[in-house]
């Protein structure tokens, strides 16, 4: 991927990521998040990780965010938009975010690996779907199954909870 495309999509990811918190209207935030995901998936694409990139869009942008939007649409949004900006809270939040950023920056900077260039990508097509599948079902089969059971339990739990609410 040419560098200018990398910069474009990286800035897109970050910019719309910032848009999620800056935006006053929840719908705007949700859509910024979608665009941020799309930028992210494009960055994966530049690493030849087609599978992850497509799954990123399919799962997050295509399914999760649609549900989010669905819920947001059912809420009364006006209250959020009318609220005044609380300067003190705003400054506090910004300070915390800045502190976190500095920390992350320093930690990554301290790592040896971050100081040298990454090895170049292997060219040609990697069959990444097969690799992810093998890794998941051969090496990490037990954790995968456990996560599956966990998700199933969570699903049943949600159904039970929502049913009780109805009655």
């Amino acid at each position, binding site marked *: 991927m040419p560098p200018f495309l990398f910069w474009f999509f990286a800035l897109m990811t970050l910019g719309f990521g910032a848009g999620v918190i800056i935006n006053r209207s929840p719908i705007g935030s949700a859509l910024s998040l979608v665009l941020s995901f799309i930028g992210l998936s494009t960055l994966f694409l530049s690493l030849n990780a087609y599978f992850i990139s497509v799954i990123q869009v399919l799962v997050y942008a295509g399914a999760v965010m649609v*549900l989010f939007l669905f819920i947001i649409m059912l809420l009364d949004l006006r209250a959020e938009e009318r609220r005044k900006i609380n300067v003190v809270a705003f400054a506090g939040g910004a300070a915390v975010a800045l502190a976190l950023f500095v920390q992350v920056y320093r930690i990554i900077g301290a790592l040896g690996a971050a100081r040298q260039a990454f090895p170049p990508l292997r060219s040609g097509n990697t069959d990444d779907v097969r690799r992810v599948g093998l890794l998941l079902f051969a090496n990490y089969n037990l954790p995968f199954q456990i996560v599956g059971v966990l998700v199933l339990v969570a699903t049943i739990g949600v159904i039970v909870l929502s049913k009780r609410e109805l009655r």
Partner: protein
Amino acid sequence: MDYFLIGTSLAKIAGLLAVVLGIMNYSVYAERRISALIQDRLGPNRVGPAGLLQPIADAFKFLLKEDFTPGHVNKFYYWLAPCLAMIPAIATLAVVPFGSTLFGVPMVIADINVGVLYVFAIASLGVYGIVLAGWSSNSKYPFLGGIRSSSQMISYELSLGLAVIPIFLVAGQLRLTSIVRFQIEHGWMIAPFIGDWTNIGKWLLAVPMLVSFLVFTIAIFAETNRLPFDLPEAETELVGGYHTEYGSMKFGLFFLGEYIAMITGSAIIVTLFLGGWHLPLPSWHGGFHWAVVNGSAPGWRGIIGGIFNIACFFAKVAALLFIFIWVRWSLPRFRYDQLMRLGWVFFFEIALVNIFVVAVIVAYISK
């Protein structure tokens, strides 16, 4: 920079877009004519010979109408929504192989190794256009349409995704061109016994493949909001559904986006189940067998073969479009609870069981 790649890609994009937009216009015409014939009417037959210029007149009508924006809408999203409805439908076409080769160039715009997943990913973005249209219109019928649409699309995406897994089990590939190639060598997905007539396992395989084909096709109907699943725009209940507040070309984008989605859906069905651009022709080279016509032959025979393959692909798409239209004018609309029940209780389960059946057959019987 690889100028040859860029040049041919641009040419392919332009060509495909031209063909698909042409098909789109004429599928609107076909819809009107076929619906008329089914209802013992004649349909548009005045503009040009047999009404063939009607799409052009329609386009002018859309363009020349006043582009009115109601005062109570959320302007930015109101303008954004029609574009979001159109773009995903077109972008999906990028990975569909619509021909073999022409002048040695493979007839697919982007041959990525997760082709089918890409299709689903982009198609799942299509719901944003509808949801935003419904929400930004600030009016109750569009809103109901938007909500119906998002829940319907999410529900049917599941069956859609599950219904194609048998194909991957059989073909062992996600790349669409490889799936087409697999079908040429081992028989189309809905008829896996072709070329291997004595293998009982292959005949057994045909049954779950047919089920999978039906579930997939029906889910595509639901994804494209076509009758009998047109709940989001049910005219009789919701005025016009999510595009009630739209007029002029903005409405046109929704309207035509639906047809593009239909074409894309048909193209995916053709690629996954009906052998893509492949049409077996009988030939005789010391024994009767099916020949593969494609563009790899030298000279003019290759060119004719390539063009023949492209024509073949679009003919299959057109046949499916006819079925889309035919179904629309035959079946009544579902009730909303029936729609949800059908999606979650029937198709979901059928597709799930189908995966296991195919897995067992592929692993143990049709070796």
